């Protein structure tokens, strides 16, 4: 066991953790909006719209995240027309490609979580709101959304942890996140176990934090 290596690699891995956290928070932020949008589309009565939303979540949940990143990072750059649009500024950066792929992926899972949360709301709550003469908009924002948040918290907590692990794939498109730096140190020193212990502990610490944050929120939103 090479303890010196563990100590010297710790600060490097810690600074790479910042990138991991940036990727995670950005993709969760955008993913939540995408998820909410598609959850609402899924609940739409128009069959074309809800089939479309179902197809979206089916495709993104049925294929590996690695394929999605590669299509966005390597694939889209191939289209000549695409390169001439202003979007190219965003899509030529591996950082943004990773965030877009992660956001689309987590959005698909989030839409499923939110959809089932909306569907399990007892109709009585909505009826009660209606009979009190509250407008549909306010019923949605003040009754359905808070209940849906509470219902979906445990599943969303799992999704955050899955996404945290998912950010490790950013290392495949040249980003130096926690896993990327860990791989770099392993391939230069050939001491996989030591680096794995340090990097793994950082990941475990982060999952532990997320786990407790969700527990705290669950308590706060319970009724």
């Amino acid at each position, binding site marked *: 066991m090479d303890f010196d290596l563990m100590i010297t690699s710790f600060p490097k891995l810690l600074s790479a953790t910042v990138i991991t956290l940036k990727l995670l928070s950005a993709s969760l932020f955008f993913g939540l909006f995408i998820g909410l949008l598609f959850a609402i589309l899924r609940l739409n009565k128009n069959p074309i719209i809800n089939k479309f939303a179902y197809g979206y979540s*089916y*495709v993104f949940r*049925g*294929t*590996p*995240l*690695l*394929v*999605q990143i*590669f*299509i966005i990072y*390597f*694939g*889209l750059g*191939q*289209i000549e027309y695409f390169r001439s649009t202003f979007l190219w500024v965003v899509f030529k950066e591996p950082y943004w490609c990773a965030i877009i792929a992660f956001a689309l992926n987590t959005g698909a899972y989030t839409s499923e979580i939110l959809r089932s949360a909306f569907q399990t709301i007892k109709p009585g709550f909505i009826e009660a709101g209606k009979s009190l003469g509250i407008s549909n908009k306010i019923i949605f924002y003040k009754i359905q959304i808070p209940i849906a948040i509470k219902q979906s918290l445990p599943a969303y907590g799992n999704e955050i*942890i899955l996404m*945290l*692990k*998912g*950010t*490790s*794939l950013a*290392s*495949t498109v040249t980003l130096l996140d926690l*896993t990327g730096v*860990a*791989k770099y140190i*392993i*391939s230069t020193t*050939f001491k*996989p*176990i030591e680096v*794995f212990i340090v*990097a*793994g502990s950082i*990941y*475990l610490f982060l*999952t*532990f934090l997320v786990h407790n944050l969700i527990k705290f929120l669950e308590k706060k939103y319970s009724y």
Partner: protein
Amino acid sequence: MELLYFGDNGWGDELFIATLMTIAVSITAMLIGFLFALIFTPLKLSKYKILNLIGNFYTTVIRGVPELLVIYLFFFGGSGAVMYVASIFGYFEYIEINAFITGSFAIGIISGAYSTEVFRGAIQSIDKGQFEASKVLGFNKYINFFKVIMPQMLRLALPNLSNVWQITLKDTSLISVTGLVEIMRQSYIAAGSTRDPLLFYSFAAVLYLLLTFISMKFLNRLEKNYSRGF
């Protein structure tokens, strides 16, 4: 489009073989995962705190650490570990483990952690009366487990096991970093030599979708079969 044809000019046959490789790795990994689950589920359900601790350590660490990191550990550390064990027995030559074994072992350990949780949950949700009844009837431990507990457990575990299968199938794409030629690696090679990444990665996505679609159809039928009478 002719890039996907079978034969010397197209990548169709290569991708077909790569698909078979993905299926082979997934099944091997799933089976290795079952072996791990077979060891760690009893530990997690044991009366002894220390055994519980070992079981929990396994599932917590593996489920909390990215799959890619576990794969790197095995990829870079695998042959070192085997050589270390071999050196104890007096063998000092360089040993290289093939990518298939490293890959399916790494994915197997990950899928094992998920399977362990599934089996634990399934056993815990079996009615206590079932255990007591089989004791009262004087069944020995083996008949109790294989004829009473196991059939009930499988029914409860199957829906979640098909989720584990989906996760395992998708995780195999990560083995491509070790150089094993499965769908992802083959698409990478094809994309590199034809400069047509969009086509090949999209096609890889279609292949994965097909695999998940077909296996879900199959597993749903299996679930129906196991829940007859309920």
